[in-house]
């Protein structure tokens, strides 16, 4: 099964890859070898215990080096945040689409360019690609690195604080059918910088394709990144995405993973608190139905003392869907005074929906405050009765309660535009009434 992908790598490496500098191709080659050695993970691999990648590995997805697609701005405008087309950099079927992007709206102090350009245009930056994420045990990451044809590179220099979110939209259209895409992104925040990045994966139409994405993030001393990952891939699509972050002292990383798309998805969000006084907030919401399978794995690694981490993941599962949450918190022996809290709450709406939840704490320091917990439940009958006893229609009340369960985690989102947009998406999903009024009205 790995063979097909390796054949494609060989074709790529002797063709389109050659436009990139030799050092890039060296990294690609090493990664291809790594992928060959690892092979696709099986459920015997503890990290993939609840998710079988068979549906991905057995299908014949093909890498297309050339740019494809004819998506127009109107086709995906609704997936943007903030009511306007916003400040965005757009990729269609995995390749940068300059004519659809509005780079000129992005704060000029921030450097934003495509990875394909960055290899030669910003090598000092691009050379960090592959230095943050580890592919030692990660076949999909290795496979991404073997290709990494394009993606976004964002560099926020020292002391630059960017108010408006920078939106990165990965759009697929009908031309993505049977294709595999390898978006590779790099976000670098220098000392005391502050920015918000919204990384969205959306589909126009109903093609079956495979996105294998990797995003590397470096946050320097005292810098803050709010990072939203919005996975709204097509319902026949497959998505495997890894975000790996390294945080220097006094930095803050705020991550939110929103997942409603794809037939099968796996999202990895890893952060390493590598200096004192860091904070990491990892929140997420997944809402599934039908036969969807959605797996989140998070890893928070406390390396240095006096850091905190907060994690809240919520899931709403209907139909025969299957959710997986595996949250790991490692506290190294030096990471004294770590303050960690991890929670996963799942609401099951049907008897056939299923969740496997595994919050894990591994603590090697002796002076820490860490808690974790998971709940799995059905709708709160008492609250439902309360609402009905006020005259609310039973079905409307039920839907509103589901919405409220989900909205609880959305309420924590700091960026108003993102919060309101996700509230709306969630409301539309569950509260199928004529009047769609946000909770705050």
């Amino acid at each position, binding site marked *: 099964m790995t063979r097909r992908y390796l054949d494609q790598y060989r074709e790529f490496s002797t063709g389109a890859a050659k436009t990139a500098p030799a050092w890039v191709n060296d990294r690609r080659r090493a990664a291809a070898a790594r992928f060959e050695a690892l092979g696709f993970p099986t459920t015997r691999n503890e990290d993939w215990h609840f998710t079988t990648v068979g549906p991905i590995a057995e299908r014949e997805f093909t890498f297309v080096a050339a740019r494809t697609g004819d998506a127009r701005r109107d086709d995906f405008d609704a997936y943007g945040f903030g009511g306007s087309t916003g400040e965005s950099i757009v990729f269609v079927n995995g390749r940068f689409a300059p004519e659809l992007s509005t780079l000129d709206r992005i704060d000029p102090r921030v450097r934003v360019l495509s990875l394909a350009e960055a290899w030669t245009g910003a090598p000092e930056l691009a050379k960090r690609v592959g230095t943050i994420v580890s592919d030692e045990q990660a076949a999909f990451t290795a496979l991404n690195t073997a290709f990494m044809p394009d993606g976004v590179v964002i560099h926020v220099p020292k002391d630059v604080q960017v108010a408006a979110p920078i939106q990165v939209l990965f759009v697929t259209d009908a031309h993505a059918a049977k294709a595999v895409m390898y978006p590779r992104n790099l976000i670098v925040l220098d000392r005391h910088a502050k920015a918000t990045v919204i990384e969205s994966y959306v589909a126009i139409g109903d093609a079956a394709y495979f996105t294998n994405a990797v995003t590397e993030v470096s946050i320097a001393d005292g810098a803050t990144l709010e990072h939203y990952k919005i996975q709204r891939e097509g319902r026949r699509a497959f998505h495997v995405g890894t975000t790996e972050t390294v945080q220097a002292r006094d930095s803050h990383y705020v991550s939110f993973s929103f997942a409603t798309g794809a037939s099968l998805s796996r999202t990895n969000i890893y952060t390493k608190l590598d200096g004192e006084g860091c904070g990491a907030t990892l929140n997420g919401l997944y809402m599934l139905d039908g036969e969807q399978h959605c797996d989140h794995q998070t890893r928070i690694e406390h390396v240095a003392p006096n850091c905190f981490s907060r994690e809240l993941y919520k899931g709403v599962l209907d139909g025969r869907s299957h959710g997986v949450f595996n949250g790991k918190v490692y506290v190294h022996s030096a990471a004294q005074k770590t303050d960690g809290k991890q929670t996963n709450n799942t609401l099951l709406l049907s008897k056939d929906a299923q969740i496997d939840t595994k919050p894990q704490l591994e603590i090697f320091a002796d002076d820490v405050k860490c808690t974790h917990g998971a709940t799995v439940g059905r709708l709160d009958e008492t609250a439902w009765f309360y609402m009905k006893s006020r*005259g609310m229609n039973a079905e409307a009340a039920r839907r509103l309660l589901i919405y*409220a369960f*989900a909205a609880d985690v959305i309420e924590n989102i700091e960026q108003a535009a993102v919060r309101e947009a996700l509230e709306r998406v969630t409301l539309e999903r569950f509260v199928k009434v004529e009047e769609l009024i946000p909770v705050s009205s």
Partner: protein
Amino acid sequence: MLDIRDLKATAGEKEILKGISLSVGKGEVHAIMGPNGSGKSTLAQVLAGNPAFEVTGGSVSYEGSDLLAMEPEERAQAGIFLAFQYPIEIPGVSNAYFLRSAYNEIRKARGEEEVDPMEFVGIVEERLKLVDMSSDMLQRSVNMGFSGGEKKRNEILQLAVLEPKLAILDETDSGLDIDALRTVADGVNKMRDEHRSFIVVTHYQRLLNYIVPDHVHVLSNGRIVKSGGKELALELEEKGYDWLVEQPSGGGRRSARPAMTGREG
């Protein structure tokens, strides 16, 4: 308007209501008193249609309809309102949205036009004054982070907005200090008129100083053991419940002091 005949209900295996009969006429205020565990709250919950209780016998007719055959929301739409003893917190649903949805559902059921958010603001503003609540409370999630007193006032606000024909107050006074109690009672009194009936469930006579009932019923062990006028409440305040209550041990023991606390000077 409400006719309860030999009503029996269980929670799980346990029979709690063991044959209650009670008639409430238009505009009347009935107080239901009784010691803990007598079935007062169960009666209130059963009338509102809480599925946690199973009706095992008897009948309830409300304005000529079989109340027990109606869903909770149908009862509310027909004009029944239950003020909860422990109001429920609903994170993520704003008070304003919740109230307006309920208000519009009830209007729809009456064949009236729904109101838009702007019109609704006007309707609520007026009622807020009734219970001395600030409009900030409307923007918060239903009962989230509310104090005990705020929760109870929020219940009365809902009562004032939804304008039921029959309001059931389930221990609305419990946990309130005297100022909050007065505010809540004032709100209720302003809602009293010749068309609206009340069933006031309370453990203490104190509330009835403010909401003066037409009839008082004492519940014990799932049955009404005594009914009377408002003076019965005063008598209970003096003597406690023990003289009316079936003693499980054969009625030998008498409490030296009234079983009730919270006396009003």
